[in-house]
């Protein structure tokens, strides 16, 4: 188990990089997922179709395939995802603004994939609001936007918290894939390097890596439990 102490800086670096990916991807997925959810519950049929189509495609595709599309499909189409090179952000997220596009590719894949699940989690919350509420709001003459803003969403988010949390936890675990698509130094790729290049036994390394992921996921789960207890929807 001495590898955990000897190579602590490697594990810590891997943890830091994975955390960066997860934070950025979570923000992106929540924004995109919210937009998709609004599309899916909107009264305009073509918009609904767009939202439904998106969710059906990305929810039913393996993440590995989405990753392949991002890491090898985008370059084939001549894109290096340079639109993500937002100036200023690279102060924290050092990999965002490099010439190597693989961090950005991984981010795109994770966001696109996770957004479908975020959308469904939000929609399940909306569905938990009794239909009478929205109907009452409509009959008062509120527009679709006002209806969402003042009546439906304030009630729905409570029901969405737990499924949303599950989606984000799943996303953190899914981020283990990015190390196999060109990114150097995230948690899962670190395991690869320590075991095959430096010859450490696999089990201690795997334990170290697991601890890294647990540090990210367990507190999140505990936080969600607390929110759920405090904001329990009275039925």
């Amino acid at each position, binding site marked *: 188990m001495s590898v955990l102490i000897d190579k602590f800086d490697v594990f810590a670096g891997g943890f830091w990089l994975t955390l960066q990916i997860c934070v950025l991807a979570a923000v992106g997925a929540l924004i995109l997922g919210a937009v998709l959810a609004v599309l899916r519950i909107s009264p305009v049929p073509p918009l609904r179709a767009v939202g439904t189509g998106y969710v059906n495609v990305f929810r039913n595709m393996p993440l590995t395939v989405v990753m392949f599309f991002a890491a090898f499909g985008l370059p084939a189409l001549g894109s290096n995802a340079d639109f993500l090179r937002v100036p200023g952000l690279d102060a924290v997220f050092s990999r965002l603004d490099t010439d190597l596009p693989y961090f950005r590719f991984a981010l795109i894949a994770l966001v696109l994939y996770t957004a479908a699940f975020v959308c469904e989690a939000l929609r399940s919350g909306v569905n938990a609001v009794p239909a009478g509420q929205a109907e009452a709001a409509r009959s008062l003459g509120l527009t679709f936007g006002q209806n969402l803003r003042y009546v439906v969403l304030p009630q729905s988010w409570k029901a969405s918290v737990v499924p949303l949390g599950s989606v984000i936890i799943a996303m953190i675990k899914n981020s283990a894939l990015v190390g196999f*698509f060109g990114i150097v130094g995230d948690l899962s790729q670190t395991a690869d390097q320590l075991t*095959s290049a430096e010859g450490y036994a696999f089990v201690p390394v795997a334990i170290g890596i697991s601890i890294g992921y647990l540090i990210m996921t367990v507190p999140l789960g505990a936080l969600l439990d607390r929110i759920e207890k405090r904001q329990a929807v009275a039925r």
Partner: protein
Amino acid sequence: MRITRVAALAAAATLALGMTACGGDDADEGTGAGSKSFAAGSTMERLNKAQAIKIGTKFDQPGFGQKGLSGKPEGFDVEVAKIIVKELGIPEDKIEWVEAPSKVREDVIVNGTVDLVAATYTINDKRKERIAFAGPYYEAGQNIMVKKDEAAITGPDSFKDGAKKVCSVTGSTPAEEIKKHVKDVATQLVLFDTYDKCRDALKGGQVDAVTTDNVILLGYIAKDEASFKLAGENFTKEPYGLGVKKEDTDFRNFVNDTLEKAFADGSWKKAWDDTAGKFGAELGSAPTVNRY
């Protein structure tokens, strides 16, 4: 209990003998239990008695160990392993090939999953802590592959200024080596699980170079001479050895003896010419086996 076990062993041995005797279609003579005798209790004797051997090799390394449509791996590593197996008196069709990617090579030896590993296995001290190497049977060297029209990269020092980007395979010796030459790993190094992906990244322009052992690069260049070339000379020495259990010195000596014999009688050179030699790499003179 003990008696039945001995009886069972005896029965199994007789059966094995009987089967090989009735087989009669062995491609080469001099195989079959009993045709060779080894020291009692040695690994050689055990394998010869069992008439079976498990060998770990690569399934995705052109010229060294690549599993093609035939369903059996083919390449230089595979041929060298076959020379050893023949010396053990075991027919070729009794070899069980086990895929041994870089990550698990030490583990499969330590756990006894395989009896021998021949998988472009660079001899180094870190690995010697857990296993032992016979050989070397080939000396490769790390090199750099670039696009045909690339003029700025001439060797590993071309990455020192932090501008040029390079690709290798995660967990490999060349990847660790090139880390010493780049200015910033985060912005210059890309690692994939296979060299095919590196080649695609080079083609697509995401990276400027691919680095690994020269023989692997020559394999790619042989397939696509219009696009790629080597940049400069080999800058490391990568002696390939055969991995065996650390404490099994008898077996290691046996493998070393067999290798020396193969260097002398031309079978080693033939193995090369039939496989990786087709890519145009120089075999050079036979290496000196290292009996540490």
